[in-house]
């Protein structure tokens, strides 16, 4: 199967391992990954900050860049939600946006399109899962990420109290309302610490930047990794390389 890959600007620049893991995983499952190199940003950051005009420009660009793809997969829940939930409204004023292809978040693609939950991964660690708000409430990915994680060899899924509470990132919110944002992630980090997890994972690098950034500052002793990195690991993976730590 041939899929277009969208790698969010944040992933590309700060967490490239997420994109690489997605490529490894998709190829292992028999997909041909197409990465149009003109891609930059879906426009989400502008859109949530109120810069609708700029967001529309970037959305139109996204639609053009991925024009040749039938299906786009991205390891960023919030970008997938931007394309699916917000592009249609923007397209009312900028018709080029309507040409954006169907865009799925990685776990949706794996479970719904490829029909797999066991991706042959091995990750012998205690793992807590924090769902991105857009995965939970916009895309409604539901238990797909958990079903994938449960099939990973050696992985012990620990319960994370208040898992569905927002981590406090919220795009520009993390800067405009930095104190409240930090108060939110402080509670998140406290609960991760209490869960006994060695690793906390999510389906969006923005949440992981927030949670991982706070864990790092506090020397929290828990790694924040993207779900894709866990699913890409196999028992025979390249020299047992550990998933990249978001220090």
């Amino acid at each position, binding site marked *: 199967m041939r899929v277009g890959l969208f*790698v969010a600007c944040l992933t590309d620049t700060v967490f490239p391992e997420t994109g690489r893991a997605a490529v490894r995983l998709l190829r292992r499952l028999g997909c041909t990954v197409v990465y149009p190199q003109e891609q*930059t940003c879906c426009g989400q*950051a*502008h859109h949530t900050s109120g810069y609708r005009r700029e967001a529309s420009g970037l959305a139109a660009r996204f639609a053009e860049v991925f024009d040749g793809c039938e299906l786009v997969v991205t390891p960023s829940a919030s970008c997938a939600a931007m394309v699916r939930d917000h592009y249609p409204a923007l397209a009312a004023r900028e018709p080029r946006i309507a040409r954006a292809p169907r865009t799925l978040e990685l776990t949706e693609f794996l479970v719904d399109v490829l029909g797999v939950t066991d991706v042959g991964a091995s990750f012998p660690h205690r793992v807590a899962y924090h769902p991105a708000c857009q995965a939970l*409430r916009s895309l409604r990915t539901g238990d797909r990420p958990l079903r994938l994680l449960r099939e990973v060899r050696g992985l012990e899924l620990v319960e994370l109290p208040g898992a569905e509470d927002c981590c406090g990132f*919220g795009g520009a919110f993390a800067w405009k309302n930095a104190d409240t944002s930090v*108060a939110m992630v402080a509670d998140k980090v406290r609960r991760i610490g209490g869960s006994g997890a060695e690793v906390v994972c999510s389906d969006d690098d923005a949440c992981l930047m927030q949670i*991982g950034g706070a864990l790092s*500052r506090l020397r929290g002793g828990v790694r924040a990794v993207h779900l894709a990195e866990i699913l890409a690991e196999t028992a025979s993976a390249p020299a047992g390389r550990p998933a990249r730590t978001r*220090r």
Partner: protein
Amino acid sequence: MSPQTGPGLPWARLLRAGARRGAGPDGAAPGPPRFADAARDALADTDARRSRAAAAEARRTAAARGRAAEDDWEGLRRRAADVRARSLDDLERLLVAFEKNATAAGARVHWARDAAEAGRVVARILGPGAGAVARSSSATLGELRIDEALRGGGAEVRPAAVADLIAEARGDGGGAPRGHDRARARAALAGALPGASAELPADPGALVGAARDYLREVLLEARASLTGANALVAETGGVAVMESEGNVRLGAAAPRTLVTVAGIDKVVPAWSDLAVLARAWSRSATGAPMPPVLSTWSGAVPGDGPQEVHVVLVDAGRTRALADRTGRQALRCIRCTACMDVCPVYERTGDGPYGAVHTGPIGAALVPQLRGTRAAREASLPFASTLCGACGQVCPVGVDIPAVLLELRARVVDERRAAPVPPPEGVAAQSAEWVMSDERRYRKAQRAWERWARVAARGGRIRRLPGLLGRWTEARDLPAPPRRSFRDWWTGGGSAEGR
């Protein structure tokens, strides 16, 4: 370029220029503090945060249980949303019908354009030397500051609800405390009850008993009673109030004069519509199938109850909100508090930083529409949300609060664009779009960031970012830049790796 000066990109310099704390987004004149600044103080009150979190958890659980107990919650929710949407679409006709039917039932209907006019109308109704006026708990009365208008005219306004007694004793005027902060509320209540003070035990039962005795006295002694309304029913000119304590029930029966002040958005066509709203409200507020007390009246009945019944219909920004297709849905709100109980921002900051009676997610969506977004505080409210979506999911009348907030953000940004000197944030956003619109420019900016970040990083992490970006690193690290970006990996062989 050096790490001391930060990235050399034009927008980075602008970000730095905009980092002066306290200045408005456009360097606006000082006014009431923006949400973020007021939140800083609120967050420092750890006791209040703890009790708010506990109260929100309890209310969330109760409401979730109530929704689960409903046979067809989503169906009820759709009906309730439909009632409110239809009412707002047909507002003019319904208001005229309400006025006609309420007048026929023996009430007098008054109209007020704004808070000041509402205050004058109520003062005129009560007349000089109004004496003791019992004021029920009502967001609209608080929003319009009716108390202040009456006190200026010499009336003695006495709160007739436990929560308002506490709020008044604590001197925080605005919204009533909602179950949280119990220890302080108890102390405040003991102080607020005349003649109770020192001997009163801290036992909640005894406090409630004393409060009940006191409130009965207030309601029975008052010559006039002031209430808000949960709904106005057009078909008969009726007023409906939902409550848990029953103060309005006595307040609407005992005093000689009964004055109800309500926003024009409160009207619904028929009693059958009210039944839908009452059920949706109750499930969302307490989880129970019906409100504990639901009082209704329409006009004066000779020889029984209040002999003078007034309804003051107030605009105060409602027609302005109605004009916006997306924004108007915020006026559907039936004040159940479900959105506040699930909001992670509100749970941490409480009411204070919203600077209004309407707080929480719906306050952030409604207040900027009622008051406009010219002032820095109102302009900051739509941004006081992570857009996590929890509020929109529970709203019993289907208000897509995140969508309204997004709409208002766009409005604030567009207003600021028109400023003679473009705000730094706007210039940065436009430059960022320019960079992102071209792969080569994007790559160049990415490389500039990588070069700078490599110098700034220590031990694999960046602990300090310059300017406005530095708000991130006040309490969070950023990872050092990777050896190469994803696209560099792809072009450097990743496109073929493993094939």
